[in-house]
């Protein structure tokens, strides 16, 4: 009976007894979820355009953040460093298209997938050669961002909102919304969907595959830069940031590999779900549930919707 009480009653009693902590958990989950959504968005953009799971998305986050901080540490003013980093991400997108993707048009998806492994290891080596492996501090103040927190007294307790987290949520939301509109309402967006359906069919109606790939890899690079800035501000900028890309996998399973709204909804469900699970149910199993609980959520959803929350329904002739 005790175990049943601990699972089904006690967590809700705790929520009622300390509603401020419940709100704090929700907020932390929301912030984490938006950042997961941002990482997932990078994967979704490239998957939509090429049907390829971009293994290099994690290292692109590191590379973008290191370029920004590296330039700043070298004495380049913060906003100029930001502009140069954006240019570097464009150059990367252009190079990837020219050197890696173009020669592989119409090759099986697995070949393109393996090519993204190559991009990953090249960027790891190149990044370490240029920037070294030492951790670097993200100069958030130089971007006009404030550290510290708003401590709000509410519900008989305190809810602490980190100023950086608030900005992260706003920027991530704006970016997700902007990219969503861009890719669903513009000619380029429609072209992107055509490319995703069939490379050769898209080429036959005059869509420039090269141009679309550069655009989506550049968009994924921008997403990586924003992700790197905010994750880097939460910790340090180092190659450890690459690991956070793994957090996007359950988000993608849940939201579907082709849906921008799916990435957002998936990110939020995973973010809030894992924080609530760790905080209220984690102690029952010795903690550490946030390492695997996201996958449990995703797998449960998969039982009912194998294509993910917003993924396209799979209909195939048999």
């Amino acid at each position: 009976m005790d175990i049943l009480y601990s699972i089904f009653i006690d967590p809700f009693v705790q929520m009622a007894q300390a509603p401020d902590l419940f709100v704090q958990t929700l907020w932390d989950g929301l912030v984490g979820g938006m950042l997961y959504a941002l990482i997932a968005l990078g994967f979704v953009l490239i998957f939509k355009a090429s049907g390829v799971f971009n293994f290099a998305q994690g290292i692109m986050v590191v590379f973008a953040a290191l370029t920004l901080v590296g330039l700043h540490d070298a004495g380049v003013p913060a906003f100029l460093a930001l502009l140069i980093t954006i240019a570097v991400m464009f150059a990367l997108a252009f190079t990837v298209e020219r050197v890696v993707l173009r020669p592989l048009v119409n090759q099986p998806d697995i070949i393109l997938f393996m090519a993204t492994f190559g991009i990953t290891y090249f960027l790891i080596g190149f990044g370490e050669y240029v920037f070294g492996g030492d951790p670097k501090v993200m100069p958030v103040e130089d971007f006009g961002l404030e550290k510290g927190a708003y401590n709000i007294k509410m519900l008989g307790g305190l809810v602490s909102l980190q100023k950086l987290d608030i900005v992260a949520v706003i920027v991530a939301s704006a970016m997700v919304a902007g990219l969503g509109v861009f890719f669903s309402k513009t000619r380029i967006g429609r072209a992107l969907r055509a490319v995703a359906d069939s490379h050769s069919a898209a080429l036959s109606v005059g869509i420039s595959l090269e141009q679309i790939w550069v655009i989506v890899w550049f968009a994924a690079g921008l997403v990586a830069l924003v992700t790197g800035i905010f994750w880097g501000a939460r910790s340090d900028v180092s190659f450890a940031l690459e690991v956070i890309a793994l957090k996007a996998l359950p988000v993608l399973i849940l939201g579907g590999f082709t849906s921008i709204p799916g990435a957002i909804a998936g990110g939020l469900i995973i973010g809030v779900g894992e924080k609530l699970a760790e905080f209220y149910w984690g102690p029952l199993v010795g903690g550490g549930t946030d390492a695997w609980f996201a996958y449990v959520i995703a797998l449960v959803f998969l039982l009912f919707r194998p294509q993910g929350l917003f993924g396209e329904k799979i209909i195939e002739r048999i």
Partner: protein
Amino acid sequence: MKVRQVIMGVACAGLVATAIYASKAQAADDIYVPLFTYRTGPYANSGIPIANGMHDYLTMLNERDGGIGGVKLNVEECETGYDTKKGVECWESVKSKNPTVVNPFSTGITLQLIPKASVDKIPILSMAYGLSAAAVGKDFPWVFNPPATYWDGLSMIIKYIGEKEGGLAKLKGKTIGYIFLDAGYGREPIPLLEQLAKDYGFNVKLYPVAGKEMQDQSSQWLSVRRDRPNWMVMWGWGAMNPTAVKRASENGYPMDHFIGVWWSGSDDDARGGGKAAKGYLALNFSGLGSNYPAIQDIKKYVVDKGKSQVEKDKFADTFYNRGVYNTVLVAEAIRNAQKLTGKKVVVGEDVRRGLETLHITEARWKELGFPGFAGPLTGISCADHSGHQGAYMQQWDGDKWVKVSNLIEPMKDKVEPLLQDAAKEYVDKATGWPKRTEACDKAM
């Protein structure tokens, strides 16, 4: 010239160069010291300064003294990325080159290598990390973990907390939170923590942090806010450390009640937290700063001559000096081995004897150019491969680490019986574990 001929030519040149390099590594006129390091990957922020410290001290001995006992040291790094598989690959790649000693610099790698050490006759120096039970020399003659085991470290922290609370008896009813990297390293001290909790009547709250959660930790620190432990103890590594320090300060946890083990107290661990991290405490057993003659020699003979990879502003940082400490032990073990065997070029079997006879007094530290750099290391014997030496507490003042205590001795009476039990359990479980046959030398 045809392309094919060019490719064949390059391939042949590569083969010849590899053969020359390999034969050089195995040359009988130098002492081969492989260094397992990680300058890449998620744990590079901890690995780089240690790698620099180890490399630079040994290079300085080559440059200043012509090596050890007139024999040059052949120092070669093998990149593990803190990955156990790569660590084992490094072992396999160096074992045929007559290595004097291996420093795995990872508890996970150490655990994998322990059964190989006696077979390949290569001693393992897991300096203040690895398997605590390996301190029992009769069961683990090839493994050394001076100057103290993780269990010693934990007992020092509990002693320090007890002192601050007005005595160990005052710990009754208090809560100590333990945030740790959820890997072999972080789980290692938990049995002792639970035992001490029983002995002194305090409660323990565990907060595991998975490797891929290192840079988040919001759930763990929210739980800390709920549980309100009186003290927090950390066994972190790599990116986990600076993130934890930041989260603790963001959550308003009193930083002077937050204590890291010696692997959670580098400059980079606290630097990111800046002023907000002021008060954070960590154990340390190696010296702070560059005000030691031997460290100045490293600067003169290695750093200033461009033979080091260390960034100028990170020279003699906490973990850099920790790397230096590690290789001082290696160098002393090699000297001992030369004296014991009468040979100039020593190999693993000789250096195992050198490690077992390590004896560094305060006077010897001074003689080596490190006056006051570390506590005496005089407790190592054939039976005790750790020495169970003390460590001191350092505190972050917002800009740098400051020493804030004298040496805290471990609770040897608590640790030793558990070590013996754990060693016995390990040996019983490992079918066919070899009985010690190695003779015992007198301390040098």
